[in-house]
């Protein structure tokens, strides 16, 4: 049976501190995106759509919400007989004290016993905080075809930006000959996406060795991949073309939401052959009121618009009151813009209330305004 041919492990421990108040209570993979999704819906839905049945999610930082969110594996259909999404936190062992994950490779090493339960042929390592649609089954087919020990997904970045990334230098056949972390003079524009397929037998051996190495940072990028290259292992680059975004800052999160306002956007969440699954909420459909004006907007069920919405993304349960104006903005779930209030170039966090006639954000602001606390009413 194909079931456990490939197991996926999602590294979801990122604190995402550049997302400021959005991540004081939730880990970055649980941050909202695109009207109804959370970022981690993307790798999880990709797994489901790629025919992967078992997914481990490695979390550590304050993640009660993330943990209980991903534990509901039926959201991604990952609840059939042998399927499951398993939350893997650092844990007390019989012979050791309680530990934290020291690096990406260590997070996997600490869960070797979990992986052994499934005895997979291949291990897929993913990051929990990227937005993209990708068929990992195709990447696996490539891995097998190339007889690779490791396959690393890469994407072309503008050459002038390449020095900000981990760059893979390949030969004519896609074989990786060199890996340079943020090279001053990049030789290629193929940036690692942090998506790896490893043949598990070999990787298991390497991880056991790496755990014992006191000089290692226990990181795939810094330790494991360089070691594999040094050992002259078969490493291949798998080039990904398509929408991909790491939303590390408030500005980039806002921007990624704005991308969806273009009906021809590259991510295309409307493609029925590759749906992104998420939490199912019980609400009314969206209601557009008697005096509402909605133009160029991305709006989901449970939203109520009585005012004017332009160029904005509205999440579940958000409300735009009478005479209120929401422009170039994102309203996260349950955000309420009361009657007559104005929201411009802003990102309004979950359940935040902008009181009557209040005004937040401005058209000309350099940065996007993050509104993470209730805003009191305006006087005008």
């Amino acid at each position, binding site marked *: 049976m194909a079931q456990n041919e490939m197991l996926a492990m999602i590294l979801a421990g990122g604190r995402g501190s550049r997302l400021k108040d959005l991540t004081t209570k939730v880990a970055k993979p649980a941050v909202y995106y695109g009207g109804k999704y959370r970022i981690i819906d993307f790798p999880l839905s990709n797994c489901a759509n790629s025919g992967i049945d078992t997914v481990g999610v490695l979390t550590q930082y304050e993640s009660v919400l993330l943990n209980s969110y991903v534990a509901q594996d039926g959201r991604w259909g990952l609840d059939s007989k042998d399927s499951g999404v398993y939350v893997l936190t650092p844990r007390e062992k019989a012979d050791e004290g309680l530990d934290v994950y020291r690096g990406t490779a260590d997070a996997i090493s600490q869960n070797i016993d979990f992986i052994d339960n499934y005895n997979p042929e291949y291990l897929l390592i993913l990051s929990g905080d990227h937005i993209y649609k990708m068929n990992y089954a195709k990447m696996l087919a490539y891995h097998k075809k190339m007889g690779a020990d490791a396959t690393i997904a890469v994407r072309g970045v503008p050459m002038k930006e390449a020095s900000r990334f981990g760059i893979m230098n390949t030969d004519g056949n896609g074989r990786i000959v060199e890996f340079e972390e943020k090279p001053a003079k990049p030789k290629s524009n193929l940036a690692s996406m942090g998506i790896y397929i490893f043949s598990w037998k070999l990787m298991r051996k390497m991880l056991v060795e790496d755990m014992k190495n006191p000089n290692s940072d226990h990181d795939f990028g810094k330790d494991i991949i360089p070691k594999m290259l040094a050992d002259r292992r078969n490493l291949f680059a798998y080039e990904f073309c398509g929408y991909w975004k790491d939303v590390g800052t408030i500005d980039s999160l806002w921007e990624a939401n704005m991308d969806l306002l273009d*009906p021809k956007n590259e991510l295309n969440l409307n493609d029925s052959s590759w749906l992104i699954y998420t939490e199912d909420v019980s609400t*009314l459909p969206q209601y557009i009121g008697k005096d509402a004006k909605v133009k160029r907007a*991305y709006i989901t069920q449970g939203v109520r618009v009585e005012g004017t919405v332009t160029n904005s993304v509205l999440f579940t349960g958000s409300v735009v009151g009478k005479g209120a104006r929401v422009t170039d903005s994102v309203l996260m779930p349950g955000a309420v813009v009361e009657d007559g209030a104005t929201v411009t170039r802003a990102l309004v966090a979950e359940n935040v209330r902008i009181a009557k006639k209040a005004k937040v954000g401005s058209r000309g602001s350099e940065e996007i305004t993050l509104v993470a606390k209730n805003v009191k009413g305006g006087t005008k």
Partner: protein
Amino acid sequence: MAAYKAFGIVSSADNSIHVEGLHDYRPIGSFSFLGRFRVIDFPLSNMSNSGMDRIQVYVRSRPRSIAEHIGSGRHYNINSKRGKVQLLFSQDSNVHSIYNNDICAYSENLDIIERMHQDYVIIAPSYMVYKQDYCELLNEHISSGADVTMLYHKVDNAKEYFQNCKTVNINRQKGILSIEKNLGTAKEKNISMDTYCMSKETFISLINAAREMSSIYTLSDIINIKCGDLDIRGYQHKGYFASLLSLSDYYRASLELLDYNIASELFRPEWPIYTRTTDSCPTQYYDTSKVVNSFVSNGCLIEGTVENSVIGRGVVIKKGAVVKNSIILAYADIEEGVHVENAIVDKWAKIIHVKDIRGTAEHPQYIKRRDTL
């Protein structure tokens, strides 16, 4: 969790009922309602919210849409081990026969009914929309000592609406004197909501009594006949109520809910109406969209104008198209320059060439499923 004592039955409309157009393709329980819901979501959510977890759904013909929509019942928040939403089919091959009624379906599945662990049964129709805590109904039933307690709703427009419904005559002690067809003779009537609470024992004896007397008797018929012998009582329902036994009732009920106050009385956060998600993405509004006073489901692409309408999932409304006072079911396409008014456009229909589709508020125009016009 009083309703742990009762199992639920969601009943199907009689074969004498035929709702124009829509009904050709699916049972009423499977009709789309307010875009994201199906009518059967209401009785099932009422039962689930009342703590009931053993529910029998009777389906007569064209069961596919109901079977798929209900699935394992998990989205109705019903424990999949302890509980069960069970589809029961009528095996009578002649689906349109008058003999193939609710009593016939119950008696065919009598062994399953007899095996239920619960002492009481709540029977609710799959063709009416309302919110009701069945615990309250059951508690009232038990404390009154009645043999059967049935829900009714007081209306003042029984002349124009509630076609095909039955009315009840009630005495001052809430005793039911008789159940009659609504003949539209008076404005004010007590409409029977076809919802009954009784002991399993009484239910089984009514099924048997009906079979003995006439094989065309329905549950409502036998209860009417027993009004003299048994203690049958009415329990008044308050709040939103719609019966969907005719196309005009369906049309009116949908548009009535465009009043957000009425809608939010029916959809309370503490009484969620569950449905099956289709995982469609949010709806895309274009630069040219003009939408007012409408419910819009997810996955739509809206370039045109929408007024006072209910738009289903994945509907496309192209530039210059106008949709007014209409119900557009899922995946329908309204192409450029088309004007649709007072109409019900069924699933997957494409309106391309016919530029003007108009019904009246009394007689909405129905466009068939998958039709290309």
